[in-house]
């Protein structure tokens, strides 16, 4: 500890940072104590050694050298960058040069790009048209369902005939038509409805509804018309209902009876 304090003191002395009394004390110790003198010389040596390291002056020669070095570096950098651009450009242009073996690759690429353009631009437009036509169809269906409630028979017929203008018919419309077929109190409206439903008979629900309707009809005209429709649709399931009518209505008009019997016969031989 004392040693370190001593060394600091010696360093301060060497740098001339000590007060007059301290300096005299150090000089006194130098003279009296051999150990101190040895320490003093040791520190002095280190201090002077440190002092030797001098920064060389930057002469004009050095500056020129540095500039030359910098220029060379910059040039090298710039050169390597142009090289990179050139090689990339070369690669890119290389792609556009006609090469037989790339034919297929190009064609497929073009097809994919075309398909993407189609998807991005044409698809949304088509779906807009589809949306509009669907909206129109929905509107027509709503109008048709409202018209079916009209108290005037010819207006209800108009509603039923409106189904020919619909490109798709939903369950709501089919249910409404089947309800009209079974419950409308006007015979002619029911007849017209039957005609409309026969045209929709691709739908299994319509077929089922038509078969089920046979026993619901209490007028001969409707029964015969339905029998006719069954024959037209080759619907064998209707035979039982048609036979039931023949059995339960013995006082039926002769012509109607004959027509029903003929129909049953034809359906049974299918």
């Amino acid at each position, binding site marked *: 500890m004392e040693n370190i304090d001593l060394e600091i003191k010696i360093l301060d002395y060497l740098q001339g940072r000590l007060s007059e009394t301290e300096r005299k004390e150090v000089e006194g110790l130098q003279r009296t104590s051999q150990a101190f003198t040895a320490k003093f010389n040791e520190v002095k040596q280190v201090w002077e050694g440190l002092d030797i390291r001098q920064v060389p002056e930057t002469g004009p020669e050095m500056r020129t050298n540095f500039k030359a070095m910098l220029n060379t570096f910059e040039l090298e950098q710039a050169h390597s960058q142009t090289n990179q651009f050139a090689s990339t450009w070369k690669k890119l242009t290389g792609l556009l040069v006609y090469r037989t073996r790339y034919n297929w690759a190009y064609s497929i690429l073009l097809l994919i790009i075309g398909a993407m353009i189609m998807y991005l631009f044409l698809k949304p437009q088509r779906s807009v048209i589809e949306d509009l036509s669907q909206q129109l169809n929905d509107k027509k269906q709503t109008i048709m369902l409202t018209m079916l409630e009209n108290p005037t028979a010819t207006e209800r*017929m108009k509603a039923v005939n409106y189904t020919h203008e619909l490109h798709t018919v939903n369950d709501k419309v089919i249910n409404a038509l089947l309800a009209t077929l079974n419950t409308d109190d006007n015979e*002619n409206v029911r007849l017209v409805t039957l005609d409309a439903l026969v045209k929709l008979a691709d739908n299994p629900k319509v077929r089922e509804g038509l078969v089920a309707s046979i026993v619901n009809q209490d007028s001969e005209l409707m029964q015969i018309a339905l029998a006719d429709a069954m024959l037209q649709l080759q619907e064998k399931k209707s035979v039982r209902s048609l036979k039931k009518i023949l059995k339960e209505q013995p006082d039926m*008009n002769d*012509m109607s009876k004959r027509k029903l019997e003929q129909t049953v016969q034809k359906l049974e031989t299918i």
Partner: protein
Amino acid sequence: MMMSRSIKIIVIALLALIAFKPAKCQDKKEMTVKLTEPAKAGKLDVEIFNGTINVVGYSGTDVIVSYKGIYYPINSNQNPGNIDAKDASKKDSNLDVSQADNVVKIVVEKPRIVDLVIKVPRNFSVVLKNLTAGDIKVANVNGDHEISMAAGNITMSNISGSVSAHTNKGNIKVDMNSVKKGTPLAFSNVGGIIEVGLPLTLKANVKLQTEFGKANSEFDVEPKSSAGNLITGKINGGGAEILMKSIGGDIYLRKTK
């Protein structure tokens, strides 16, 4: 004093009774029904159990209902189709006629029989229903007409607007001067002739179908698909649907002269 006061009350009560008398006719052969809005078109809605109905359009604005009487058949259980039965008894001769918003309604319920003659303004829709038997005649009206009956003939002449006519057993003969644009027409029966006259220039899609009779058209039907008992196609380029359907009768589509 007391006497004269009670007489006054009786007189006032009687007057009130007369004033608020419902549209009910007792022993009268004819009654006049005023319309709520005489300038506008109206509708006649008649449903009878049995009897004849004869409706004629005229230049007036009231509906005039006349009837020969309302009869009960001798035995109400007997076949109601037998109209001769009305000669036997004449009990209740009331006819209920009501009018609301230009709709004149007449209902004669089972088992009564009635013969009606009704005059209506020309712009009138005629809706007639006969549940059993009798003939129906309609003339000189413009509107949406609906005739349906179980048995009897339907004769309509000088008609405008739209028509739906059905009878089970009986002839249908209709002559139309003009048809409401875009409105379907339908005529059907089981047995009996169907003969319909339509304006020369009417555009329509027609379907004439009979099971055991023959279908005939004075109009050129294009494209004609005809099998003797079936004619379907367009007349004058096509338009609203016209259905003429019979089981046993012949069908005639004619041009109105």
